């Protein structure tokens, strides 16, 4: 059963749940903003903005803690059942995943001072489009949570493929650039990490989407809706199994 929004007889339960929903929306919004700012800092070589992203990540960490505390409390005190229980479990997991998304944005921001020859690096031109889609996946996955929208959650998972395709293209372009311009290898490596961070952000958005689907329907998301992870020769060789 999907949550129909009917109120609980015990109104305090609703206010706990609403407070949690508000905090999840906030942590999602902050993470999405962190991605946008980190990428703008990269494009403009804006070190101050990059520092702001690093600084503001603390707020995201703080929010995650508060969400986890309140979720824990609510489960202990209200003994939720059915969709309420699923929603709280999803909230608990989503807060952790979204906090990771914030960490990836912070990681991008930290690389900004290390990538200075932006105009010489051809592959960098793909990053804004890639980050735009990754950011949209984060936003849509959290919108899906706010609306209990299983269809939108499935849609997020399908669209993650686009982020993966971007990553594969950038990977090839960066390798080619490295071969042609050995002096840029250091900076190009950072670009590759940034692309990988964006690819991971997309994966985490799909994790959120899978939890939303479960919270909304009580069933795991069908396998076919899940995007395949990108594989590059390097990934296969390293096989870090980080998923």
């Amino acid at each position, binding site marked *: *059963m999907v949550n*129909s929004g*009917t*109120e*609980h*007889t*015990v109104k305090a*339960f609703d206010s706990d749940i609403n407070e949690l929903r508000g905090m999840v929306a906030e942590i999602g919004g902050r993470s999405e903003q962190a991605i946008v700012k980190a990428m703008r800092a990269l494009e403009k070589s804006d070190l101050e903005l990059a520092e702001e992203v690093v600084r503001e990540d603390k707020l995201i960490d703080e929010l995650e803690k508060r969400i986890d505390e309140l979720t824990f409390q609510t489960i202990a005190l209200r*003994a*939720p*059942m*059915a*969709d*309420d*229980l*699923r929603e709280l479990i999803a909230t608990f997991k989503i807060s952790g995943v979204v906090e990771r998304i914030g960490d990836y944005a912070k990681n991008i921001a930290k690389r900004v001072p290390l990538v200075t020859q932006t105009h010489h690096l051809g592959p960098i031109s793909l990053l804004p489009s890639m980050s735009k889609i990754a950011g949209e996946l984060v936003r849509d996955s959290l919108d899906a949570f706010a609306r209990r929208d299983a269809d939108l959650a499935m849609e997020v998972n399908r669209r993650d493929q686009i982020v993966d395709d971007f990553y594969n293209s950038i990977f090839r372009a960066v390798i080619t650039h490295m071969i042609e311009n050995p002096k840029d290898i250091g900076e190009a490596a950072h670009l590759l990490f940034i692309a990988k961070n964006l690819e991971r952000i997309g994966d985490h958005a799909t994790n959120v989407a899978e939890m939303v689907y479960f919270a909304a329907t*009580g*069933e795991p998301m069908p396998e076919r809706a899940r995007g395949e992870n990108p594989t590059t020769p390097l990934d296969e060789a390293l096989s870090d199994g980080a998923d």
Partner: protein
Amino acid sequence: MNNDQTMKTSSESVNMTGPETTGMATDDGAPKMTARHVNVFYGDKQAINDVSIDVNMDSVTAFIGPSGCGKSTFLRCMNRMNDTIPIARVTGDIMLEGEDIYAPQMDVVQLRARVGMVFQKPNPFPKSIYDNIAYGPRIHGLATGKDELDNIVESSLQRAGLWGEVKDRLQDSGTALSGGQQQRLCIARAIAVDPEVILMDEPCSALDPIATAKIEELIHELRGKYAIVIVTHNMQQAARVSQKTAFFHLGTLVEYGETTDIFTNPREEKTRDYITGRYG
């Protein structure tokens, strides 16, 4: 089994099989009781509407639902307790091991020995602990002598988890026990006549949490030996003790399924509203 009539030397740790084996040990998983299209009327008022349900030996079945939903009424149909209410009328089929319990040749006293019942408020007889247990086996002729009766009393109290607490004062009055002990005494009394099914109508609602936990542990231990049906208002209790849960609403069976499914992902909106506290 020991022959000591005082039974004081008997080891408590021995897992007694009981003097009267249930004969149900080789249960093949077929439903112990089946109800089909059951309707119950109190005069003109219909209290139960077309309920069909199976009760199995290997699972505890919980009936949940708001007050007046018919869960207790239905439970009482399962050993014909409703017979005692003149205006109550039952239609449909309720079978115990394939026998129609409402058939004219069914001996109701025998039926209630086979389908025992434990009530909300502990109701021990105003007699000794020993006689509370021995009463049923005596009237049903289950024991031929004092030794055999002693054995039944001891094994029933063992199974009900009460033996250790009362073995030295079997002649004390049953009503002198604490509420939780009285309830376990009532369960022991039901067990003493070797039932196949035990019906429990809110057995813990008058008990404190510790006595409640003991009854729940007892239910867990009795599972598999008897088919157990429990009516409870406490949904956490239903979730804790049962493997199957049936949700009743306005006299109909709304949803019946695995307890884990009912409490994590119910199919019906009414069930969802009730178990999540959105009812009414």
